[in-house]
């Protein structure tokens, strides 16, 4: 608590953890490359350096606010420093901006160069050119674009508890790499893509599959079918001046129809299928002494985390496919029926996901049915935006359109899958005997909502106290699993989403989201739920139809995996 003077104006501060936060609160967007409020303070880039009334300069990210401080943020000396820092970073950086995927809005380095007014780099790049790491289906690492801010290293270690990347060597030789310069697919990387979200340059970017989609769309012998995940609809608008978190599902559907997609379905529909199957599996395990706690299987990064590092808990993972996997398998089966495919075209399923790990999930050996790949191409939200821009659609002018039948409708329970706690909330709705407003509200208030990394609560069901743990962020998941393994905690159900806050902040979402955007995206999904008549997965009429039809004897084959 106290007051400080920033550029001659008195500013109050309360519990801000550093001077930088106070400066930003005062409306001065001081530049940073290595500072993120969700990561530990690193103090590497020195761009946030400020000057005090004695002429002393210090990095504002690493200084606690003190009462009576007098600081200046834009003196001549500081401007010169900052410009020099950015110029030196540019000197050792690949400058092929015209062909870099992060060029434009997402490259912080590029935007700082513009802000600092750098028009010339006086120094030669003496760094050795290193090869790209293309071994991951999810991300591409280009070491030549790395500025050593360490954001990826800290995100991987602190948020996800994986530590696949680290600094290596020192001084001018310093580089970011996995241990022993291994390729990323040889590490414990779970493909979550958070490194890419925190990377301020193009050193880590999404492995793109856009061209494959254009090829499929151009092929007259191919039926191209889309599915759109819940979290995508509340993030695409970010790029087009739509208020943050507002669902633009109808506009996305329109854009995809225009691109030439034959059918556009909603992954919310298969989220409902997941709820049906997972609830049944959960009750079966509880009643018949199956392996507990049941671990959710929707998040492929989490599933890989368990299969890599908690092998003894693999039997606990739900055998349910993820919503992506379920819908793709159902779509493929639907068009295998000649009645639905009179012209005998090949079906290609493209899924639009907030997630880079879904690209890896689609490649998993258990993502095949009848020898055929379920999901052919996975496109992240960021790539979807690029596709819309590629075709030159004026997003604001796109009229909303509805998804296609028979897989184009989901319940409110399905749509909240995109936010942490959503899966559990939908399960609880399914378990609830009625669908009154009061019972839906009491579920929402049971402790399942909120952005805490670990939420523990219990709900009574048929005479037992169902103990639930809802986790987001894999570092939190590790803490929970260590306790479970040691016998210090017991649960019936553990829901884990690898990314903090859930899929709304997935590795494929537009980067650079601040606190308000994060909150707005969650609210956007809850709003979509609020405006849906059908709240419960088991009341979705299309789901009921499917169970009475195609799924009668194929539910296990299409909706479950044999193992991990």
């Amino acid at each position, binding site marked *: 608590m106290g007051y400080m003077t920033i550029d001659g104006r008195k500013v109050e501060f309360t519990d801000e953890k550093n001077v930088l936060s106070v400066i930003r609160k005062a409306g001065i967007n001081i530049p940073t490359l290595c500072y993120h409020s969700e990561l530990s303070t690193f103090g590497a880039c020195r761009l946030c350096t400020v000057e005090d009334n004695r002429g002393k300069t210090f990095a504002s990210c690493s200084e606690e606010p003190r009462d009576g401080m007098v600081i200046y943020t834009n003196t001549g000396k500081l401007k010169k420093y900052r410009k020099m820092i950015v110029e030196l970073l540019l000197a050792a950086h690949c400058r092929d901006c015209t062909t870099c995927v992060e060029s434009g809005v997402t490259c912080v380095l590029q935007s700082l160069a513009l802000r600092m007014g750098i028009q010339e780099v006086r120094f030669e790049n003496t760094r050795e050119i290193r090869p790209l790491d293309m071994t991951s289906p999810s991300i591409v690492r280009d070491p030549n674009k790395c500025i050593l801010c360490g954001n990826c290293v800290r995100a991987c270690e602190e948020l996800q508890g994986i530590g696949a990347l*680290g600094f290596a*060597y*020192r001084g001018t030789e310093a580089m970011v*790499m*996995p241990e*022993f310069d291994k390729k990323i697919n040889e590490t414990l990387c779970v493909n979550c893509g958070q490194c890419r979200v925190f990377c301020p340059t193009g050193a880590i970017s999404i492995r793109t599959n856009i061209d494959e989609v254009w090829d499929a769309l151009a092929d007259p012998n191919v039926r191209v079918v889309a599915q759109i995940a819940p979290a995508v609809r509340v993030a695409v608008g970010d790029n087009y001046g739509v208020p943050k978190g507002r669902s633009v599902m109808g506009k996305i559907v329109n854009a995809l129809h225009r691109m030439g997609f034959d059918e556009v379905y909603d992954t919310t529909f298969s989220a409902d299928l997941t709820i049906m199957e997972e609830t049944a599996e959960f009750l079966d395990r509880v009643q018949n002494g199956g392996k507990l706690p049941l671990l959710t299987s929707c998040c492929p990064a989490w599933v890989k985390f368990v299969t890599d590092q908690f092998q003894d808990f693999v039997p606990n993972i739900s055998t349910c496919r993820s919503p992506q996997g379920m819908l793709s398998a159902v779509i493929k089966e639907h068009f295998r029926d000649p009645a639905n495919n009179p012209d005998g075209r090949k079906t290609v399923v493209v899924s639009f996901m907030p997630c880079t790990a879904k690209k890896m999930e689609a490649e998993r050996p258990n993502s095949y049915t009848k020898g055929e790949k379920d999901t052919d191409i996975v496109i992240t939200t960021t790539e979807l935006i690029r596709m819309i821009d590629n075709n030159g659609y004026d997003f604001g002018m796109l009229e909303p359109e509805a998804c296609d039948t028979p897989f184009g409708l989901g319940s409110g329970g399905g749509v909240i899958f995109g936010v942490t706690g959503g899966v559990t909330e939908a399960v609880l709705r399914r378990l609830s005997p009625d669908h009154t407003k009061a019972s839906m509200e009491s579920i929402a208030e049971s402790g399942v909502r909120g952005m805490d990394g670990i939420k523990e609560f219990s709900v009574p069901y048929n005479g037992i106290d169902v103990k639930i743990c809802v986790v987001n962020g894999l570092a939190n998941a590790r803490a929970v699993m260590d306790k479970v393994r040691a016998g210090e905690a017991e649960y019936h159900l553990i829901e884990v989403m690898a990314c903090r806050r859930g899929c709304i902040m997935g590795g494929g979402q537009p980067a650079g989201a601040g606190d308000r955007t994060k909150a707005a995206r969650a609210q956007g999904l809850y709003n979509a739920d609020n405006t849906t008549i059908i709240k419960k997965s088991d009341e979705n009429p299309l789901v009921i139809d499917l169970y009475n039809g195609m799924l009668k004897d194929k539910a296990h084959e299409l909706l479950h995996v044999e193992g991990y």
Partner: protein
Amino acid sequence: MLDQSYYNKADEIIEGYGRKAASLIPIMQDIQAEYRYLPGELLTYVAKQIGVKEAKAFSVATFYENFSFEPKGKFIIKVCDGTACHVRKSMPVKEALMKELGLTHKQHTTDDMMFTVETVSCLGACGLAPTLTVNDEVHPKMTPEKAIDLLSELRGEKV
């Protein structure tokens, strides 16, 4: 794959320092003292045992010049290139050694595993510049000629 005896030795060293992150450097030092280098497999093993991420352990091991993943020769020759030695022409001494042993900037150890030649920043014997050490024994006031003689002397020990 390393022989099991390496892992047993590592276990012994780990027990001596305790399974905690802070033990990383002393454990690596002891392993290097034992084998004259730090086998990569043992770094992986130690990291797992003391609960440090492998990338982090690699980061520490590569930060310090002292740790080497390459097996070193029987004689480790450290040529000092601190300021005093440098101005008294230590680099010609090193170059003479490298030429005689057929070493390059990439290869620091001879194929017969007899000699390793490295540069160090200061041995603290500036009055004796230019200086070098052979397995920590100081040889003062070196010249390229004396260095070659030293090699034959060391080779003589071999027989």
